[in-house]
């Protein structure tokens, strides 16, 4: 199961050819039905009553007036949901409706199910909740300073949710030996996914009495498990259908309160119950980018090679655990993947605050440290008088190598990415020579192609595919993978078609339905192309063997001399000996009975054996290099980005149209984070109010780029097929986002000589830094201090080149 299929062929009919994605037609003409488009006879509508307090104890909930309101069928409260849930087994800290405590403004406390949405909304105001307000915590610094009251009664201590430390080799010793040690602080503000589709769910009872939930989710499998737990039902009696998502970006990975509420209501009432969140509610569901404060201490030799790095991070987790334990790891674990780093120490702490829970957003935990790392590298290059591109090229991680932290790197195209981005942008001729106020910045990144370990511990496949063929030539491929707009249905159709030598439009794709499709863990961690793809190729190889066997008999040749191409099955030596694909299926069905197969995939075992080694390993890593051009107005600090060049190591582009779309979409989202996006909160004057509210929960006031603000993007796809990946294809959906933010910061430095060490980079910060520069002060805007965090003693592991075996070295450091 671990070994991926050998490449089935070297010449491709479908792979690598730009073509229209299989779901493109429906999405373009408005035919695609999203969850909010669904309607069923006798359907009722749900609305959630949410807390107006950022932190309060619930003293009583009186729903009698709401219950009596005309048109109201049911009112649910926390009393109806005794079982907690959470996406990660170690953070089961949420209830569908709050029971004793509300922890942020927007925390759901009750639900009304009524004949229509208007009636349900009217009844919300009739629910009487008595709250006892509690002191609030607005930032991780505050959470560290105020252990009481605790937002949760679990966690490391006080309001610290997760706290961890790892050290790979003696970092202080290496820093002491370094020619230079650079120390920098960075801050990355939180931001949210902003999918165009607001979450919607429709629960109903099917004819056989089983529960059906049709919903906008990225992870139907994890949701399925949580529904069984919270509703206390056998999961086999629940069916979750992930309806094509209008964008996810990580925001639809966690199970949502509303999904439990409509499911429960449908079970109680026996009628279909639907909900569609308002845009404001989507901001409260959140699970977006963690705000992260970072401290980098990095040692280098005088020619700019890294000697060691000590990275400390402090995450603002919001009110619930969500993916937090993983997010905390991800603020460090992928740092050593791009450049050779002999020793690495990483400490991370996640603190609860009274704000919507943070979680996974495109790049999950990695964009923040990547920003700090890549800006610091730029500073190092300038301090040492090196070309930032050349400096990076001299210290790339090698293919088939291990990092100090025991991650196995397979293929890497980062060098080629840097060279391509440098060439496309005219870096060598133009950098520093664009004239006043104009500059170029370069940054790189690495990202994983699928998490090596599942969210819940098991030894089962991460993805499974079933193929069913019949005598009409119909090929149906079933997989639990979920289309969230990233194109996974097209990848599945394309790979299956390539393996069977047929056109992708001949393949019928059935995905994301726990009632029908074999399990895939979900659309997260850039895992789908690799894991679903490998499973699909295994399944396809198995039916192809059956078809080849039957065809060989009919064509009087040997099965291993049979080829599949362009909807035909033929003998390699003599193409005149051929039959159509449909005839081959019929021949095989006659010989073997119904033609079906399954395939599955689990990633290779991680090389690290210490506790915590499960986060970071991946079957493959993608790499990206980006050059960004900027213009800065010295009078106002106004920042313009006229052009971005980006080269992405994708292994192989299965459908280049789709791959380019993913890269450009990543650039779009990254540039929005770099320039303006902020999930920001405000307090009112404390003497007058205890309020702690989201500043801008609307699409107008939460600023993300419009079409007008998007620069031209020139994309290069670097193709060096990775042997662990289906036909060599790596991810493209997340990695290309990561270098955009540091590239902007570095370009601004090239343009006007100031450092903005935090994201977003707004014109007021640039102008403030320019004013400092004019006064002869340090021309920098960014965090000034890093608080004392009670990190634990690190888990100490020797790097592979220092005699380590991947286990923790108890008793601390070797002499």
């Amino acid at each position: 199961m671990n070994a991926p299929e050998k490449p089935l062929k070297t010449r491709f009919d479908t792979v690598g050819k730009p073509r229209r994605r299989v779901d493109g037609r429906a999405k373009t003409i408005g035919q695609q039905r999203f969850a909010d488009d669904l309607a069923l006879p006798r359907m009722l509508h749900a609305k959630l009553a949410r807390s107006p307090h950022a932190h309060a104890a619930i003293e009583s909930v009186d729903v009698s007036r709401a219950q009596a309101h005309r048109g109201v069928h049911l009112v649910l409260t926390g009393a109806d949901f005794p079982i907690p849930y959470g996406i990660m087994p170690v953070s089961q800290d949420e209830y569908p409706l709050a029971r004793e405590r509300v922890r942020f403004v927007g925390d759901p406390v009750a639900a009304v199910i009524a004949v229509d949405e208007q009636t349900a909304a009217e009844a919300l105001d009739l629910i009487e909740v008595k709250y006892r307000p509690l002191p609030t915590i607005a930032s991780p610094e505050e959470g560290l300073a105020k252990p009481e009251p605790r937002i949760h009664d679990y966690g490391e201590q006080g309001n610290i949710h997760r706290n961890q430390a790892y050290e790979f080799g003696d970092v202080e010793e290496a820093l002491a030996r370094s020619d230079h040690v650079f120390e920098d602080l960075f801050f990355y503000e939180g931001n949210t996914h902003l999918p165009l589709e607001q979450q919607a769910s429709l629960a109903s009872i099917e004819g056989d009495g089983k529960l059906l939930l049709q919903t906008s989710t990225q992870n139907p499998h994890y949701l399925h498990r949580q529904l069984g737990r919270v509703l206390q039902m056998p999961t086999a009696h629940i069916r979750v259908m992930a309806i094509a998502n209008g964008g996810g970006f990580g925001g639809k990975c966690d199970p949502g309160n509303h999904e439990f509420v409509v499911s429960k209501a449908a079970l109680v009432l026996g009628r279909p119950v639907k909900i569609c969140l308002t845009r404001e509610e989507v901001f409260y569901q959140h699970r977006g980018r963690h705000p992260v404060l970072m401290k980098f201490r990095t040692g280098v030799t005088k020619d700019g090679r890294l000697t060691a790095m000590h990275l400390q991070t402090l995450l603002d987790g919001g009110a619930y655990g969500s993916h937090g334990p993983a997010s905390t790891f991800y603020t460090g674990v992928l740092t050593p993947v791009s450049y050779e780093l002999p020793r690495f120490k990483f400490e991370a702490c996640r603190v609860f605050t009274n704000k919507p829970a943070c979680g996974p957003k495109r790049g999950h935990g990695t964009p923040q440290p990547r920003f700090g790392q890549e800006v610091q590298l730029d500073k190092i290059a300038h301090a040492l008088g090196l070309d930032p591109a050349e400096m990076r090229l001299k210290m790339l991680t090698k293919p088939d190598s291990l990092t100090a932290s025991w991650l196995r790197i397979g293929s890497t195209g980062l060098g080629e990415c840097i060279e391509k981005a440098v060439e496309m942008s005219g870096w060598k001729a133009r950098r520093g020579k664009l004239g006043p106020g104009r500059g170029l910045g370069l940054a790189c990144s690495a990202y994983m192609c699928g998490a090596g370990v599942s969210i819940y511990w098991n030894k089962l496949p991460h993805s499974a595919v079933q193929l069913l063929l019949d005598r009409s030539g119909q090929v149906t491929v079933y997989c639990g993978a979920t289309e969230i707009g990233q194109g996974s249905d097209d990848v599945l159709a394309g790979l299956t078609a390539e393996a069977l030598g047929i056109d992708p439009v001949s393949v019928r794709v059935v995905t994301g339905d726990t009632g029908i499709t074999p399990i895939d863990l979900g659309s997260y961690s850039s895992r789908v192309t690799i894991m679903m793809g490998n499973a699909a190729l295994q399944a396809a190889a198995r039916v192809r063997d059956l078809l080849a066997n039957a065809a060989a008999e009919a064509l009087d040749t040997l099965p291993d001399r049979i080829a599949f191409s362009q909807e035909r099955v033929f003998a390699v030596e003599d193409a005149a000996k051929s039959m159509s694909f449909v005839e081959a299926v019929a021949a095989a069905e006659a010989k073997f009975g119904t033609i079906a197969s399954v395939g599955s995939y689990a990633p290779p075992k991680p090389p690290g054996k210490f506790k915590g080694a499960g986060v970071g390993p991946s079957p493959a890593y993608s790499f990206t290099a980006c050059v960004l051009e900027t213009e800065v107005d010295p009078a106002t600090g106004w920042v313009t980005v006229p052009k971005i060049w980006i080269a992405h190591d994708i292994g192989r582009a299965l459908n280049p149209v789709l791959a380019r779309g993913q890269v450009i979409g990543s650039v779009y989202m990254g540039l929005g984070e770099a320039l303006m996006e902020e999930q920001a909160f405000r307090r009112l004057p404390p003497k007058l109010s205890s309020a702690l509210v989201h500043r801008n929960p609307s699409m107008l006031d939460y600023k993300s780029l419009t079409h007008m603000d998007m620069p031209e993007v020139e994309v290069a796809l670097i193709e060096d097929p990775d042997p662990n990946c289906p036909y060599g294809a790596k991810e493209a959906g997340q990695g290309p986002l990561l270098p955009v933010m540091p590239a902007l910061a570095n370009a601004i430095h090239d343009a006007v000589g100031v450092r903005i060490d935090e994201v977003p980079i707004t014109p007021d910060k640039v102008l403030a830094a320019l004013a400092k520069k004019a006064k002869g002060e340090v021309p920098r805007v960014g965090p000034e201090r890093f608080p004392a965090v009670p990190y634990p003693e690190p888990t100490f592991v020797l790097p592979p080149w220092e005699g380590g075996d991947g286990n923790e070295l108890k008793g601390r450091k070797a002499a």
Partner: protein
Amino acid sequence: MMRMPWFRWHAPKSVAEAATILADEGPQAMLIAGGTDLVPNMKRRHQEPAALVALRGLGELKRIANGAGLTLGAGLTLAEVVESRSVRENYRALYHAAAQVATPQLRNMGTLGGNVCLDTRCTYYNQSYEWRKAIDFCMKKDGETCWVATASKRCVAVSSTDTAPALIALGAKVRLVSAEGTRELDLADLYANDGMEYLTRRPDEILTEIALPAASGWKSAYWKLRRRGSFDFPVLGVAAAVRAAPDGTVEDARIVLGAVASRPILTKAGELLAGKRLTDEVIEEVAAKVASRAKPMDNTDLEIYWRKEVVPAFVGYALREARGDDMRATRMRIARQAL
């Protein structure tokens, strides 16, 4: 989705009938034209009118008349204003302003009269009912305190209309019609510096048209500061109109600042500029003086001190364009469009 409160709907066939309905319904009734401001506000329970009187479809509010000047019906959509050749050629400030309101979709629905009468805005006010409940509401609606300036006796919500500063700079007058009769006033006098009572229009009056004087000899421009190239309300608007003698000596000038108070601010630029030529030095000096009138509050997008700091630069852009400089490259950077 967010739902509207219940209301009565009137669809009069004429302005006169609308005025009669408005008089009969009393102050609980509101006018609706494009609805792009009012409908989202009603969903958020900012306004909960008992009745709506629809002006949409009244042909008499859609007239454009060229005479000594230009008369624009208040019911023209912003897209129609942008497409008007007279506006594009002779009243550049209005063209720049109307073309940068919101988005193409909203300009297709929103009207000139609606933008002139736009409700004042504030980050503590333009939120849903549930959000405002979490701050115990504010002075402008349902509450007591102004959270922007807690000691303030008046609401400091921001005048966020783009077209009004441009129209005031161009010397516009407006016509108000009610069952009682008709009155005309300078557009500048339609506004009061109060975030709640920001219009001097009586509730029974209908804004029917906006009249601009002849444009001969005048050059004008409008510059808008906002985060993005579309969608956003202004956090600063600068409209400049200048009439200069053939030798370049300024005979008359108006600079109007938008989005830095609860009303558009007509500055003393006319006095400062009269008799001078628009040299770089004069522009810099006047820009600095005019900018001192801007008193932004911390209740819009973007950082408050920065917004104040960049006012002179934006006044400079507007004056340089009114002088005849080619400002297209700067305009592309600021507005993301050439206009």
